[in-house]
């Protein structure tokens, strides 16, 4: 007897990827299960129609443009033309530039450009030592945690790292595992093979499966850590349903049963709990009315009162994020090279609006929320040369440049990572010869450093700071070795430790710290979920195969 047919088996069946034994087993199941038989007939019918129709819809270009005509248009386009579309804008910008220069000149003698206020969580960094200058930075001492040093030493000539011993000791056996969500106490929740698992108590390593027979998506904890919201693809429409789960009763309820109005017929994609309560922000995609000029909207639901209301409609909504308990920020895409950000309060008042041109693809020149309660927004500015990291103070509208890249390097790949105490920024740069470096910048003493690794070439896979700014955990993949690595950098004594290594193409990702900074969870690709105890130096395989 096999389980009901899922996408993996179903597609493999009519794409001819099952072996004879698997095929016979599935066909026996189909003979006994009218529901699966009916479903497979639908899929097979559509599959055959798509195959039959496919060939007719492949269009060839009528001509291939000449590169010599294309390239100069891109390369020689004056910067000012990209920014300013007409003369009056240019004149205004000139005036603004003069005023800005005067403003900066007035500021200069008084204090550094950026005023960084350490947050109240910074008690753990009292023994903080400044990061050395790049030129004097010693190679970090690399010690290895959880695996044999001889197996996993990250040198360019090493053989691919063998599987670690822990690989076979997962608490939950699963093929595909989501990132983890942690509540304030450190209780973990995640999705493995479509099933939602919730830890029975923080750090208990025992999990309860929430069996709703649906394909679920990663959950999000409420501020008090007692409720979860997650999307579930249980129904036949293909549209996910937003589900609500409470820890005390274990009850699972569709959000539509908890609010005072029918959910609009649009696609909700993620959930943002307010930091201080049971309100949720819901970005939605799709027109609310057929003739609407907007294609997206933001909704606010209060799970105590059950009241849900529309906050704002938008076009090309990109992201929504709480800035503090009363305000949230949304970004919208205003074109190929343009992002606009706007902040609203709970009574739908537009608080401020800002935009930034960006000529690059995806990660370049984008906004990252920095110290939300201080109302600062980090801007990665790859539009100007040299590139800069700027900070926008949303209370005053001032933009201050805190870091200017020199030496011909540019930002690359991952977003910059700022410690929660606002002291150190970690970012990736690429040099003129294509070499990658992970650099650090201390915003207090304005010194830069480099995270030295014993890899000739590597790809930075991102990372995460713990809440006190004591540790930065990050991933690196080394194509020459064919392995992925997790490193832990401790800025206090400037040491780097190798936490884990794994052979293969998958990278370590989705680093999530417990609030107390003792444990950090992360995935290897989508196949494994690990927990690392920073104090004990122990690794635990939470889920994997």
């Amino acid at each position, binding site marked *: 007897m096999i389980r009901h047919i899922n996408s993996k088996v179903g597609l493999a069946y009519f794409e001819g990827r099952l072996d004879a034994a698997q095929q016979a087993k599935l066909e026996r199941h189909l003979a006994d299960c009218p529901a699966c038989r009916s479903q497979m007939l*639908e899929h097979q019918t559509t599959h055959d129609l798509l195959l039959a129709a496919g060939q007719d819809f492949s269009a060839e270009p009528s001509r291939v443009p000449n590169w010599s005509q294309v390239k100069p248009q891109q390369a020689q386009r004056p910067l000012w033309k990209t920014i300013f579309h007409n003369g009056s804008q240019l004149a205004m910008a000139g005036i603004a530039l003069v005023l800005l220069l005067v403003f900066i000149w007035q500021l200069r003698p008084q204090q550094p450009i950026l005023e960084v206020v350490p947050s109240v969580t910074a008690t753990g960094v009292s023994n903080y030592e400044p990061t050395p200058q790049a030129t004097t930075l010693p190679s970090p001492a690399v010690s290895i945690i959880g695996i044999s040093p001889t197996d996993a030493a990250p040198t360019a000539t090493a053989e691919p790292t063998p599987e670690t011993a822990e690989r076979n000791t997962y608490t939950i056996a699963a093929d595909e595992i989501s990132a983890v969500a942690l509540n304030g106490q450190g209780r973990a929740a995640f999705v493995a093979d479509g099933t939602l698992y919730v830890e029975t108590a923080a750090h208990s390593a025992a999990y309860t499966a929430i069996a709703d027979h649906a394909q679920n998506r990663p959950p999000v904890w409420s501020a008090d850590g007692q409720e979860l919201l997650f999307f579930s693809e249980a129904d036949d429409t293909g549209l996910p349903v937003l589900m609500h789960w409470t820890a005390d009763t274990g009850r699972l309820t569709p959000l539509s049963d908890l609010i005072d109005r029918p959910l609009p017929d649009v696609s909700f994609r993620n959930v943002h709990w307010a930091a201080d309560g049971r309100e949720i922000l819901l970005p939605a995609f799709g027109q609310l009315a057929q003739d609407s000029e907007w294609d997206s909207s933001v909704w606010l639901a209060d799970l105590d009162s059950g009241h849900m209301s529309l906050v704002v409609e938008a076009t090309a909504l990109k992201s929504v994020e709480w800035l503090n308990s009363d305000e949230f920020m949304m970004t919208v895409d205003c074109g190929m090279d343009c992002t606009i950000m706007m902040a609203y309060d709970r009574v739908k008042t537009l608080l401020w609006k800002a935009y930034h041109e960006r000529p690059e693809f995806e990660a370049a020149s984008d906004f990252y929320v920095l110290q939300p309660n201080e109302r600062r927004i980090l801007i990665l500015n790859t539009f100007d040369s040299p590139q800069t990291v700027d900070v926008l103070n949303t209370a005053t509208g001032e933009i201050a440049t805190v870091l200017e890249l020199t030496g011909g390097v540019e930002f690359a790949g991952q977003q910059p990572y700022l410690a929660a105490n606002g002291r150190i920024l970690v970012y990736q740069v690429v040099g003129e010869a294509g070499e990658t470096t992970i650099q650090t910048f201390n915003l207090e003493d304005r010194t830069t450093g480099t995270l030295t690794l014993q890899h000739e070439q590597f790809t930075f896979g991102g990372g995460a700071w713990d809440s006190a700014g004591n540790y930065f955990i990050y991933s690196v993949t080394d194509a020459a070795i064919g392995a992925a690595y997790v490193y832990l950098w401790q800025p206090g004594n400037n040491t780097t430790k190798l936490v884990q290594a794994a052979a293969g193409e998958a990278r370590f990702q989705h680093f999530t710290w417990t609030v107390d900074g003792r444990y950090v969870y992360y995935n290897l690709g989508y196949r494994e979920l690990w927990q690392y105890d920073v104090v004990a130096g122990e690794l635990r395989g939470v889920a994997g195969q």
Partner: protein
Amino acid sequence: MYSTQLFRRAENGDTLAQGELFRHYYPPSYRLAYSLLNNQEDAEEVAQDALTYALMNLAQFDSAKGAFTSWLYTITVSRCRNKRRRKQLAEIPLLGWLVNEKKQTAEPLNPPEHTAAQQEEKTAVYAAIQKLPEKQREAIILRYYHDLSYGDIGEIVGCSANTAQSRVWLAQKRLYGLLTGQMELDTFRSAAGHD
């Protein structure tokens, strides 16, 4: 597949190498953009823009992560998303789309053995694809019209191979509902060879 040396020359600013790569990779980028945008001008703009960006930023291309085509497709898909959002493309009359398409291709799209009914069915399939949610539409188009593996699809649209499979599966189910809403069920099944 082009040699590493050619890519290196292009990265170092060799216009001839860049031109050769542009000529080779423009058609696949255009085909993908066209199937996602359903508009010739938009597809031309996106293909040119995506490929120009790729060639001018070859230093960011990591061959260890996958083929250049996958990276180019990732850029193309993202630009298509932006383009769709910006323009909020109105529904394009499919008959007009087919007529335009016939003008562009050397081979007749509607060979004599194709009956009007078959053409109508194919038109309905493509119309239904346009009604799918964005991620499902991308997955179906990359799978059926560009013959990519689920691993490649995942890499291009930014999800796992399993999620890509799940999107194709959900899209098939939704398409069935959309198509049975447009055609008589018997005709539909007959067209697919399930009498």
